[in-house]
């Protein structure tokens, strides 16, 4: 035991630890260079139990080598100061890892937040309507009894007008292949076609001069809807499978979402009335058919068709670059299975669940911080006369939630704002960067509870100790 104790505080052990650290760093560098994935490299090195063991080894080695000097004398002071400083630095690092915050905050102009998203964490955000309004809570996804499983990677598509090979229009029975539907008093053919040239197909249908609602789907699953009425012109709208276009939410999303399609149909009653009014003043009945056609054109009315928006998740092989993986969670809630794709930034739609009682989203865990940040204005600064940016800035209003005090700050690249408590906010991204739509910023948020209490004092102490060891030895002897 004594030999082990001596070894743990010895120089050979310190050299062994340093060698291991160097090997881990080299391994991490090589893996990251080969895979272009810091996360992948970290899983084998910095985040591995081996690296934690090396840190623990350093702590023991420094502590025991200091204790070897017991009983302590005046001449040991520089040595002990250096070692104590190093122990404080390592202690501070461990406290930062386990009790600190390293995350990001997304802010949209006009809005604010006091929530920091923790990257690479997985939680289910659940929102529920109560008598006090909408209440949010989160639960680590792995701890949920409703969780059936998680695919490490997949892609998300949006199902709209075509579901399971049939055309689905809200309020009507699903139509497979071809069908007919009454819109008002007009009969429309409905055709479902798979094609990568939807416009050409629409023109072919339009040439038939009969009202047709054509829904096409391409190889990627994107839908295009055409209303080829008797009039000139074809109403068209595209619904890409890989991104959201316009949508309508019902009950703020608690009852789901739909996508709309606007088209014009005949209003026969209005057309007849118009013709009747005309004939009361002009009794000439020749050209009545043409008159009726003109009346139909003038009195056509707009209707909006809707179909439910549904997410479709397709598991895929995980990427080597772990940062590009998008996990898919499968859950069974109130007897209904639902799949959710990971929303890395905590944005994206919240989907209805539990019979409309909940809105849920699969996203990183968030922690509440004692500051609320409101983004007032984000902008890109360009070189005069050019569109080349040289800096980005964001005006934020910081409210200390404990005291109510408010401070205005302008963040810019390399200009960090740090609160008195040690929360640091760093502007790490801005989109879109021009002013054509509202700006969104990403802040890197860092909180190290040990920075001023342990880490920095430890660094100062280690520096003073090392200085004294080499230049003030005579003073302490």
């Amino acid at each position, binding site marked *: 035991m004594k030999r082990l104790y001596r070894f743990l505080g010895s120089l050979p052990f310190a050299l062994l630890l340093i060698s291991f650290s160097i090997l881990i760093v080299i391994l991490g560098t090589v893996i990251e260079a080969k895979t272009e994935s810091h996360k992948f490299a970290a899983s084998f090195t910095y985040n591995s139990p081996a690296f934690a063991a090396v840190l623990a080894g350093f702590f023991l080695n420094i502590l025991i080598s200091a204790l070897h000097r017991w009983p302590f004398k005046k001449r040991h002071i520089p040595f002990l100061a250096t070692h104590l400083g190093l122990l404080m630095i390592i202690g501070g690092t461990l406290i930062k890892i386990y009790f600190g915050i390293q995350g990001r905050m997304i*802010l*949209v*102009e*006009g*809005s*604010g*937040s006091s929530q920091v998203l923790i990257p690479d964490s997985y939680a289910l955000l659940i929102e529920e309507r109560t008598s006090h309004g909408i209440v949010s809570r989160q639960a680590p996804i792995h701890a949920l009894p409703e969780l059936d499983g998680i695919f490490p990677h997949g892609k998300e598509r949006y199902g709209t007008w075509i579901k399971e090979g049939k055309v689905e229009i809200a309020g009507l029975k699903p139509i497979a292949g071809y069908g007919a539907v009454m819109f008002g008093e007009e009969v429309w053919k409905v055709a479902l076609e798979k094609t990568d040239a939807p416009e050409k197909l629409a023109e072919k249908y339009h040439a038939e001069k009969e009202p047709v609602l054509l829904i096409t789907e391409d190889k990627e699953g994107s839908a295009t809807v055409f209303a080829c009425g008797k009039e000139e012109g074809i109403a068209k709208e595209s619904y890409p499978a890989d991104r959201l276009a316009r949508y309508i*939410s019902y009950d*703020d999303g608690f009852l789901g979402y739909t996508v709309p399609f606007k088209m014009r149909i005949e209003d026969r009653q209005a057309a007849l009335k118009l013709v009747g009014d005309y004939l009361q003043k002009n009794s000439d009945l020749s050209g009545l058919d043409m008159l009726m056609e003109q009346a139909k054109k003038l009195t056509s009315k707009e209707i909006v068709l809707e179909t439910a928006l549904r997410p479709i998740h397709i598991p895929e092989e995980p990427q080597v670059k772990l940062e590009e993986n998008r996990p898919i969670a499968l859950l069974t809630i109130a007897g209904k299975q639902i799949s959710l794709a990971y929303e890395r930034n905590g*944005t994206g739609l919240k989907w209805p669940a539990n019979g409309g009682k909940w809105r849920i989203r699969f996203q990183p865990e968030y922690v509440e911080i004692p500051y609320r940040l*409101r983004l*007032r*204005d984000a902008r890109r600064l360009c070189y005069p006369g050019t569109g080349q940016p040289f800096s980005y800035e964001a005006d934020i*209003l910081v409210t200390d939630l404990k005291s109510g*005090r*408010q*401070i*205005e*700050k302008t963040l810019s690249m390399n200009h960090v704002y740090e609160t008195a408590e040690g929360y640091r906010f760093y502007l790490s991204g801005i989109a879109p960067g*021009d*002013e*054509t*739509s*509202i*700006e969104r910023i990403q802040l890197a948020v860092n909180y190290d509870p040990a920075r001023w209490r342990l880490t920095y004092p430890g660094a100062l102490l280690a520096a003073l100790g090392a200085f004294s060891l080499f230049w003030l030895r005579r003073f302490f002897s």
Partner: protein
Amino acid sequence: MRWIFLLCLLCSCAAPEEEAPEMQTIPGRDRVETYRAKIPESWIKSPPSEKESLADTTKPIYQLSIPCKEGDIIITVHNFPTEKFEERIPAEAQAARWRSQLGEALVTEVRPQSFGGFCGLRFDGEAENLAVTAWAMLLAPEHYPQVEGGRRADYTIKAVGPPSAMGRHREEIAAFARSFELIEEIPQP
């Protein structure tokens, strides 16, 4: 001793935090305090009379003026409440109206703008005896479903005055316009 002094000096170098300067509130068309902005002390504020109805959107919800020797600059704020998204007046339509009001304009410029949760455009125009700098701002589509009532209104800020006076005060006016925001935070979309 020198080290202690150095440490004290380093610790005292932190820049003092700036308290947020006071914002002045501006009521909406329903007379409820809805907006706020930084209004320079030297500007003269002319809120609408309590007896006057503001239902007509041609009437400003607030008016300010900057006294200048060659003629005052008049700044008017209008807002346009809507029930439906489709009812909103496009920013380009406002800019076209301002352009036509200037008559024979020597210079006009339109730039996109985005701040405070609103996006739209800034119009700068100059005729021989008159200069205009104006903003037409619409509540961002992402925010529209989150906001209700009078807060949902789009707004315009228009500054009109002699060209020389406008040139001197343009930055100050722009700072006022860009500080204009809803008092209540908009929920994250």
